[in-house]
């Protein structure tokens, strides 16, 4: 509940800082590119995007400001504490981050304090547990816990001696000797033999693994210390300690969530978290098809590849120029794909829902059926239908509407291709949106419309004042996820156009980028291409993360407060 008054000054301050930063960025980028003698196009593009961002922020911020003022006036006039649903502001957002950082450091400090006081106040069993994990548990009769702690320590130490130490020591260099030829003595005869050297890939992989293992060990050690403190407290208060049996029982009862989460979280850790950490690190190395870590080692290269992607001063057919183009198209595509589907889907749903329309079920079923058919079939088929020698062009030629050689360039012309892709995406997406919209439309209280009609509102006014706000309110989070989904919509783009038509300037220099390529399909092409510049793919992946993250953070913080999940229970 919100009792404090909103301070307009804070919002103003934050907005001012953001605007200033954006303006400075714009000036720096322009000056830098003019100095480098590069055409004005690229900085204009970037600057334009920054400016748009600034305008959006200012618009949103000023509306917040007006709200804040109204709210404060209301509070002053009424003289009572008004409870209003909390609405996050940008100021709150920064405050949250700041608080989070503060809390993080405070909690680390507390941990250390706790570890030290436990040691000072503890008995000899506790003190010995700092070295031999689980000793306290074993000595106090909690055999199961003690054995688990001890076992973990033994495994960890063993691993570090025989494996982890090596991987960690190699991590800074990622390997010294590559595959090499050497003269070996085989049965008295000297033979030249290919000997395997270090393996950069494995070093990086197991290096990351070892780091995870060390973190896990530190956490377990901390738990071990905590267990001792708790056990001492329980004994001091005269109660009995939990037995191994009750520990096991609690895994299907009070601690059942640990059992439930063990498998899913392990999967996520091994197959998502670790690969992502690994790939983020790859962005700072030179890992590519030629330097795969076996035949040729790869090494740390710092921020080199980020510079390659983000500086536009080195010509027009490089990764950096292509990145700007593809990012712009990705955002344009995401906006069109999301909102065209959203509004048209809503329209179709409203048409089917209208009173007096018969066969509602039939219309819906026909549309739903198209969801069922695997997307790759429909996408590939439609893609070939619009091709130069596809059904539509051949049909038009057969009937003399166009001549041979004048085929409609659905996939050959950049603008045609982009429009066709958006239109076909509407075809793909409407049934799905229709389903969602139908469910929500039916939930809008009918009396809202009744009273609107009594007041003489026509259909359009009803839509504008009731249907649309209601839909937007409920589907806000969905719109965000679908926007992000569209930014990463690999299937539609890749199966329809394969990213083409190819951009001749960028085709050879920057991973065969085409005019309809999204960041995600570009990334795929780079990894599948002949050079297989994995580090570049990785940098682009990080960029996708940054862009998506910024959009999501801003939108989440501006959405009406996310519904309290406890409300439903």
């Amino acid at each position: 509940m919100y009792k404090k008054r909103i301070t307009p000054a804070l919002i103003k301050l934050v907005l001012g800082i953001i605007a200033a930063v954006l303006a400075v960025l714009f000036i720096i980028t322009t000056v830098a590119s003019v100095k480098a003698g590069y055409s004005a196009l690229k900085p204009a593009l970037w600057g334009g995007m920054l400016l748009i961002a600034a305008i959006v922020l200012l618009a949103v911020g000023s509306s917040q400001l007006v709200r804040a003022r109204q709210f404060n006036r209301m509070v002053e006039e009424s003289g009572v504490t008004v409870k209003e649903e909390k609405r996050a502001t940008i100021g709150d957002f920064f405050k949250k981050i700041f608080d989070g950082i503060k809390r993080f450091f405070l909690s680390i400090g507390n941990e250390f304090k706790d570890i030290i006081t436990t040691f000072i106040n503890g008995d000899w069993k506790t003190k010995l547990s700092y070295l031999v994990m689980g000793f306290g548990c074993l000595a106090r009769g909690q055999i199961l816990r003690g054995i688990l702690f001890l076992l973990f320590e033994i495994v960890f130490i063993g691993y570090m001696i025989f494996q982890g130490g090596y991987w960690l020591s190699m991590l800074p260099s990622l390997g010294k000797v590559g595959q090499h030829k050497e003269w070996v003595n085989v049965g008295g005869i000297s033979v030249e033999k290919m000997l395997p050297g270090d393996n950069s890939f494995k070093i990086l992989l197991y290096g990351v693994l070892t780091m995870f293992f060390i973190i896990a060990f530190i956490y377990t050690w901390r738990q071990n210390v905590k267990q001792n403190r708790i056990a001492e407290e329980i004994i001091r208060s005269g109660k009995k300690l939990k037995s191994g049996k009750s520990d096991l029982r609690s895994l299907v009862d009070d601690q059942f969530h640990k059992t439930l989460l063990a498998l899913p979280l392990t999967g996520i850790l091994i197959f998502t978290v670790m690969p992502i950490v690994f790939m983020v690190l790859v962005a700072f190395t030179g890992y590519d098809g030629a330097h795969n870590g076996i035949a040729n080692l790869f090494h740390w290269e710092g921020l080199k590849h980020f510079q390659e992607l983000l500086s536009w001063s080195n010509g027009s057919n490089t990764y950096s120029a292509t990145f700007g183009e593809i990012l712009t198209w990705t955002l344009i595509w995401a906006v069109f794909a999301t909102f065209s589907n959203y509004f048209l889907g809503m329209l179709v749903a409203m048409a089917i829902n209208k009173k007096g329309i018969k066969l509602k079920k039939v219309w819906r079923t026909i549309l739903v059926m198209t969801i069922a058919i695997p997307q790759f079939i429909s996408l590939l088929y439609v893609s070939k239908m619009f091709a130069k020698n596809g059904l539509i062009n051949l049909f038009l030629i057969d009937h003399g509407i166009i001549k041979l050689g004048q085929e409609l360039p659905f996939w050959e012309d950049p603008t045609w291709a982009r429009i066709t892709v958006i239109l076909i995406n509407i075809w793909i997406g409407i049934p799905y949106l229709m389903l969602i919209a139908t469910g929500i439309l039916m939930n809008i209280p009918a009396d809202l419309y009744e009273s609107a009609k009594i007041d003489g509102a026509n259909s359009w006014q009803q839509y504008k004042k009731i249907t649309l706000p209601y839909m937007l309110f409920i589907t806000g989070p969905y719109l965000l996820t679908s926007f992000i989904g569209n930014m990463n919509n690999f299937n539609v783009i890749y199966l329809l156009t394969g990213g083409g038509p190819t951009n001749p300037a960028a085709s050879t220099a920057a991973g065969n980028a085409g005019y309809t390529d999204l960041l995600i399909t570009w990334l795929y092409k780079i990894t599948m291409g002949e050079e297989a510049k994995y580090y570049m793919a990785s940098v682009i992946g990080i960029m996708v993360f940054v862009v998506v993250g910024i959009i999501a953070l801003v939108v989440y913080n501006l959405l009406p407060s996310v519904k309290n999940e406890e409300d439903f229970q």
Partner: protein
Amino acid sequence: MSNSNNMPKRHMGLRTANTVSNVLIYILLVVICIVWLIPFIFILLQSFRVESTCQVGYVIPHTWGLKNYVNLLYSESSGLFGTAFSKWYLNTFIIALCTAVIQTVIVLCMSYALSRFRFKMRKALMQFMLILGFFPGMLTMIILYRVLKDLGLTQANAVPGLILVYVASSGMGYYVSKGFFDTIPKSLDEAARIDGATRAQVLWRIILPLAKPIVIYTVLTAFMAPWGDYVFASYISMGSTAGKNVAVGLYEWLSQDQIMNNYTMFCAGGVLVAIPVTVLFMCLQKYYVEGVTGGAVKG
């Protein structure tokens, strides 16, 4: 959503206006249905065309026949069901079946735990997974491919490798079913706990029977996803014919050098893939609709 035919009659034109708008809507709906169904009808028609195998400018075959279907499933050298397509089909079916079972278990565990338990790191965990989702999943493919290759789970052995990849991170898709569990009253759990049931028994005996719709929804979506996956399947089966799934196999039939010979076969293959999935989907449609609408409202 304008239900204007309930309005008090204010003037005479209202009824006619309503009729006109209804007629317009009918026309719109018929057009929509035609546009939406046309490509599928075309695929079906062209799969029966036997006079040529390339793309042509007409839809209705001049000569009808089952040659395309026969070619998909039978060849003289390898016999019935010995063709590449049969292999891909079987691969995809096995993947879909295994994924459906394992993924459902994982998603249900995850969503039930996050819905019912209030443990220390719960909020942080959910936020962490949200942020994790901002990374393009495709990026992980590069390393997963090399690791799976070391384990011998790529190329011809791509099937178990693909199942592993699909299933392992499926816990991140807990949103819809968590939203469903949230709507089951907590008082049910508490009543059973007072009667002495453990948390595990509560889940097994009380919640799961109530959660039938969401279980079916999860199974259905998990079963359907592998039929359409191109990215991971193409990467992990790279360069091998035996390890492909239908999406990758059929995609190659439409490549520049194969489309002249394989276009009608592609149509027939598409029909064979679409039929079981579509039939299953239409049977369980109700649950799918429930899941989608519920999930979207919860966000």
